[in-house]
């Protein structure tokens, strides 16, 4: 039932540098219609850059772009759209002041060259698109007010519209749980049937093994391996990416017996989001929390940090009850929080890496008379760039110049610098490559060994199993089950979730 003739999309010998630094050095690849092709590689290996070149966002220094039977040395975004290219960008790039419906419908209007917007038509397009990927989001809401997972779903709905022939998905699943991902894969299968060529980028290897037919692996802007997906094993992919053998075994440190608690949460209630939640974390303990979208896990994390209202309950840090609904009180008590959406909640995007690194504890860097000590500021910047191995040449570059994984390290560093007693991490390795992920988990482990307590909110079950001492599953705002160290098992957890 192929509706498109077999076409080929690809690039030949693409070279691209950013101010002297080479992001891509002679990359070639090709995808046929009806094929799902994976681009894998570490953070900063050039995946997004390649996608931006193929969709006309960046111009290559040299090289050729082929879209069907047309070749381009220079491609504009408009031409790309005209050739049927659609992109789900890593940062979604939604239009912030418009509604969900408008965001979804605009590409349809553009592709129809229509100048008239009708409210009812907009809503119809949006409702259909969301229906296609099987999700339920209020289409009248403004995209500024919705969760990161919803933003990602909207970006997907927008790109998988009628006219698409070549679809780029740059880490489309980072904020989604297994349920939405399953739906997404069904949609990808449908598009495949229709003859759409798809390029799929993800750091989750089981995802790419499940959905992709072919693969290209990049390292430092060069192709180090490519071929048919079946010929690659999990280990060979991660080894080609990193040049190392990345272990994914459990690394949670042995938990020392402690009579004290870092935090005790008692009978936390905010109707209808969560109902009567209680748990505690011992020094050095890493507690995982997981649940489906809308289960209340993110709200719970934010509530403890004073960013989501609490109706009643008690939060006790090291024996002292803290004032609720106040982030300053939480910070003062020693609670740190890494939010899930680094682009809008975690980072000051256009500001320098250095300023981002010191954003939480700015006041620590003042000497007498509120004077900012630039020396200490620069020293702190250097320390964190070194400690967390943030890949940059200059800490004064804007944080946007970093790859996704390195941006995530900046947010993490900003909070580690405060040395909190309890660190709440909401999606700590979202969009982080397999090697870096291991390194971030190791950072968590080391800090836990020093006595820092962790609350890790994540959809990534293997990750939770690698690092946590205990995992709570949240369902409809309640703890539905608790898994102890000995009970942690992927299959069992997935089952509890579905």
């Amino acid at each position: 039932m192929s509706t498109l003739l077999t076409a080929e999309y690809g690039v030949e010998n693409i070279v691209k540098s950013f101010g002297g630094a080479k992001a891509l050095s002679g990359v070639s690849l090709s995808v046929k219609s009806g094929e799902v092709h994976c681009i894998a590689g570490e953070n900063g290996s050039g995946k997004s850059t390649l996608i931006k070149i193929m969709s006309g966002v960046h111009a290559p220094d040299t090289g050729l772009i082929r879209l069907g039977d047309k070749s381009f040395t220079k491609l504009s975004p408009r031409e790309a759209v005209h050739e049927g290219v659609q992109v789900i960008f890593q940062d979604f790039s939604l239009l912030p002041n418009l509604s969900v419906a408008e965001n979804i419908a605009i590409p349809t209007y553009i592709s129809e060259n229509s100048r008239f917007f009708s409210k009812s038509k907009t809503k119809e397009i949006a409702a259909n698109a969301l229906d296609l990927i099987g999700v339920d989001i209020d289409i009248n809401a403004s995209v500024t007010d919705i969760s990161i997972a919803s933003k990602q779903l909207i970006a997907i709905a927008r790109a998988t519209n009628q006219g698409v022939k070549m679809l780029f998905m740059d880490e489309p699943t980072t904020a989604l749980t297994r349920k939405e991902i399953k739906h997404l894969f069904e949609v990808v299968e449908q598009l495949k049937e229709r003859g759409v060529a798809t390029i799929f980028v993800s750091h989750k290897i089981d995802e790419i093994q499940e959905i992709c037919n072919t693969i290209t692996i990049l390292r430092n802007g060069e192709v180090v391996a490519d071929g048919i997906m079946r010929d690659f094993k999990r280990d060979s992919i991660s080894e080609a990416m990193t040049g190392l053998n990345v272990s994914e075994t459990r690394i949670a440190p042995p938990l020392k017996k402690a009579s004290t608690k870092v935090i005790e949460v008692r009978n936390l209630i905010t109707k209808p989001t969560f109902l009567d939640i209680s748990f505690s974390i011992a020094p050095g303990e890493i507690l995982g929390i997981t649940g489906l979208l809308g289960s209340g896990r993110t709200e719970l994390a934010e509530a403890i940090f004073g960013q989501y209202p609490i109706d009643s309950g008690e939060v006790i840090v090291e024996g002292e009850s803290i004032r609720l609904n106040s982030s300053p009180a939480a910070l003062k008590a020693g609670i740190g929080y890494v939010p899930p959406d680094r682009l809008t909640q975690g980072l000051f995007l256009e500001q320098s890496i250095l300023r981002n690194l010191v954003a939480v504890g700015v006041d620590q860097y003042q000497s007498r008379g509120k004077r900012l000590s630039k020396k200490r500021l620069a020293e702190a910047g250097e320390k964190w760039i070194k400690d967390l191995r943030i890949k940059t040449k200059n800490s004064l570059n804007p944080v946007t110049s970093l790859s996704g994984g390195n941006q995530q390290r900046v947010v993490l560093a900003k909070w580690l610098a405060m040395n909190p007693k309890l660190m709440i991490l909401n999606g700590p390795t979202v969009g982080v490559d397999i090697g870096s992920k291991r390194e971030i988990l190791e950072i968590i482990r080391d800090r836990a060994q020093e006595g820092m307590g962790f609350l890790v909110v994540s959809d990534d079950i293997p990750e939770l199993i690698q690092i946590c001492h205990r995992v709570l599953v949240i369902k409809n705002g309640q703890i539905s089950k608790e898994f102890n160290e000995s009970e942690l098992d992927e299959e069992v957890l997935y089952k509890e979730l579905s």
Partner: protein
Amino acid sequence: MNERFNKINSGLLADRKVTQLMVITAGTFAIFSLVSRDIFFSSANFTSMAYQIPEIAILSIAVMLSMLTGGIDLSIVAISNAAALVAAWIMTTKMGESETLSYSWIIIACVVGTLVGLAAGAVNSIIIARLDVTPILATLATGTLFNGIAIGITDGVSVSGLPENFMRVGNGTFLGIPTPFVLMVVIALAVGYFINRTTLGLKVFLVGTNRKAAQYSVMGDRKVIAWIYLISALLSSLAGLIIASRTSAASPDFGSSYILLAIVVVVLGGINPNGGFGTITGVILATAVLQMVSSGFNALRFSQFFYLAAQGAVLVFVMILNVVLERRRVSRSISKSLRS
């Protein structure tokens, strides 16, 4: 500190804008000096510019601060007039028939005037930082309110005939340099120190770049914004006192065109209207450029309407220049939204 540290605060982008502006300033100066060698390029003209630049520069610095946080303060002129009126009223009441007034009373008058200005600023702070009203609407409203109160109390009549020794500040010199100019330099240095060398200053840039991330970083974003509107009011009050001292009068409807001019200056000075980026050097240079254009046109006997149009033209030119220079950055996001 070495250059690298300086860049930490100004930001690379802002640095480029300052260089741009220096070229524009030098160019404007050169052109008018060549075209009007005897009138523009004369010490009399330079002196007169040195007396006129400070008021608008200080008001522009006030606007710059609010703009750095992503807001704007439209009540600067109303506050400036209010402070001047209160000070002028105290002075004229106290001096009676004489021509001068004791320095202690002059100082008291200025302090009280400034306090009234600060009180007005506190109203802005509360409405904007506490009640989350959009700055442009909040200050438009409070500006109108302060102005209305001033007109109501004074019946719209200006208070003139200020003490002679007070006028010496606005018309005299300090070490051979016009005193208002010296005051402007001191204020610019102080504000420069504040935004570049204090933690509160760094927070101003961060809050202006991303308010939500500032909330998640628990840096007291409301406090930062509240401070900014207070400081803006303080600067406006000082500008009002300088104006009163130079003109020997205070009136509720003085300088309403200054609001627009200050915004032109600030945008020309490279302050990002969305917040987060800008330098004080940019603002000072931009004030100088506009003053030169104004004086230059005067020297060439062009009409004042022509000057207004030129102001607009400068603004449009700078905006286009900015867009062209930042095309890469901008085109990236535009092309994204195009496809989206």
